[in-house]
């Protein structure tokens, strides 16, 4: 069986194989946190410490244990944070390591190339969310006695999917700008402040609330909170559908921008100004 076809992906099997190979190689080659120190730091230590930090401040300010909504919100931030970190740097290093030009002159499917950059970051981001959730349950005694786990799983997977779609879309700009940390800071900051993870969305000004509607995690997090409280998948249909819509929107917009950047680069002979 040929894994890579020089004539492009002509059969479904070759297409799937190409996608798998690209996903694997881009994850291994462009994700620089994939070493024991950095991986443990980002996957385990940082999410847990962030949950602990917010819990400490809440306990100090109110004299009581932080409420479950806050703990869940901060725990779930691990998902978009991990997706953003992994995917944005992959886009940047794709260019700086010199493989982007090779990709642009190859006949490979652009959609496969684009989405493969996020494929293995999805399970990675979901794992970060699970670690964070487990830490909230163990360290902060988050009550999950009434949780509907099928609904929790559905919400978590959708938060991961929309986070990856969002990071891929934003990653396009990492091809354009040189400093991916600007985009990383902006993306994480927006989700932290506007998704309802910490500050309830009803307390935000109308404009910021509207921005939050379009961010990944906003609807999925609300679904997750209700699922922990006992809501079923059917009860959460609207929220889950909204998260799917957000993910689909970013996927569509992202691939359009990706193609536009390629066309612009071909026309002007440079990726940036």
């Amino acid at each position, binding site marked *: 069986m040929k894994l890579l076809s020089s004539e492009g992906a002509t059969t479904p099997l070759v297409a799937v194989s190409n996608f798998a190979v690209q996903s694997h190689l881009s994850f291994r080659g462009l994700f620089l946190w994939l070493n024991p120190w950095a991986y443990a730091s980002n996957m385990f230590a940082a999410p847990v410490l962030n949950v602990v930090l917010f819990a400490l401040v809440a306990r100090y300010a109110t004299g009581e244990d932080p409420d479950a909504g806050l703990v869940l919100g901060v725990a779930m931030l691990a998902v978009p944070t991990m997706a953003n970190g992994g995917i944005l740097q992959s886009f940047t290093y794709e260019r700086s390591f010199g493989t982007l030009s090779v990709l642009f002159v190859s006949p490979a499917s652009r959609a496969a190339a684009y989405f493969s950059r996020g494929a293995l970051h999805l399970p990675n981001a979901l794992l970060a969310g699970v670690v964070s959730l487990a830490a909230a349950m163990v360290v902060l005694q988050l009550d999950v006695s009434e949780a509907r786990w099928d609904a929790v799983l559905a919400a978590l997977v959708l938060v991961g999917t929309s986070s990856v779609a969002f990071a891929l879309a934003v990653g396009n700009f990492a091809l354009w700008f040189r400093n991916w940390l600007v985009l990383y800071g902006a993306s994480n900051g927006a989700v932290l402040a506007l998704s309802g993870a910490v500050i309830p969305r009803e*307390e935000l000004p109308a404009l910021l609330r509207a921005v939050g509607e379009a961010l990944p995690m906003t609807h999925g997090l609300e679904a997750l909170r209700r699922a922990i409280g006992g809501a079923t998948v059917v009860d959460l249909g609207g929220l889950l559908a909204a998260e799917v819509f957000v993910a689909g929107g970013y996927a569509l917009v992202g691939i359009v921008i990706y193609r536009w950047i390629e066309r612009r680069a071909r026309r002007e002979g440079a990726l940036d100004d």
Partner: protein
Amino acid sequence: MTAMLTALRGAFGQHWQHTARPSELLFNSLNQVALVVTLGWVASRGVDESAVGVVAVGVVLLVLWRAAVFQLGFLVMDANNSGTLEMEIIARAPVALLMLGKTLAAASFYGALGLGAAVAVVLVKGGAPEVARAGWFAAGVPVAIVAVVSLAFLFGPLTFVVGGKPGFFNAIIPAGIVLSGFVHPVGILPAPVEALARLLPTAWAMEALQFALTGEAGGWRIALGWSVALLLAVATLAFSAWLVAIAERRVRQVGLT
């Protein structure tokens, strides 16, 4: 002495140019302000008025810590990657002094950013915090800055000595925030964690600052906090300088890798 000061000033100026750029300002503003505002919001939910004050003051040091560690951790690595480390080692000025100059430049830039973050918290709260012991508080701020800078300085040589890996700092930063007590008293940490925190100059300096802010403890207790913080800061700086020497020796023996 004049040569030393010239070297220090040169390193400060070089790193200031490297740091004070629109992209740095944008990245740090977006990244820090969101965290600071959300922390301020959490603190403002409580009935304890002093908690918001503690957070408003703490975020200045928190921002300084987050940004400085992130950047200082890559001081030696960046110099290596940019091709200037070799010249720094060949130059007669001690490498540790050059790194200190760069550290001070980063601290100045991010300290200003931290002040902006404190204003953000005050805006969330709707007014400036009341300070119980203004004189002690004013004198405690430089001590806290020295403590933060000394601890952040440690990560430059440390990263290089252990073969710095991208992404490593993402756990160090929140760990430092929790253990230093920038936005909460270290006294509310579990006993074993508090014992660990007490090894850091920042924990003592922040506690003294919080005592001055809230008036919970007298002058002697604040002075004790300053003393321990400064002693630990000096020890940390000395340890950092020793690590710089190790890094320099390694480079001279095995070359730049």
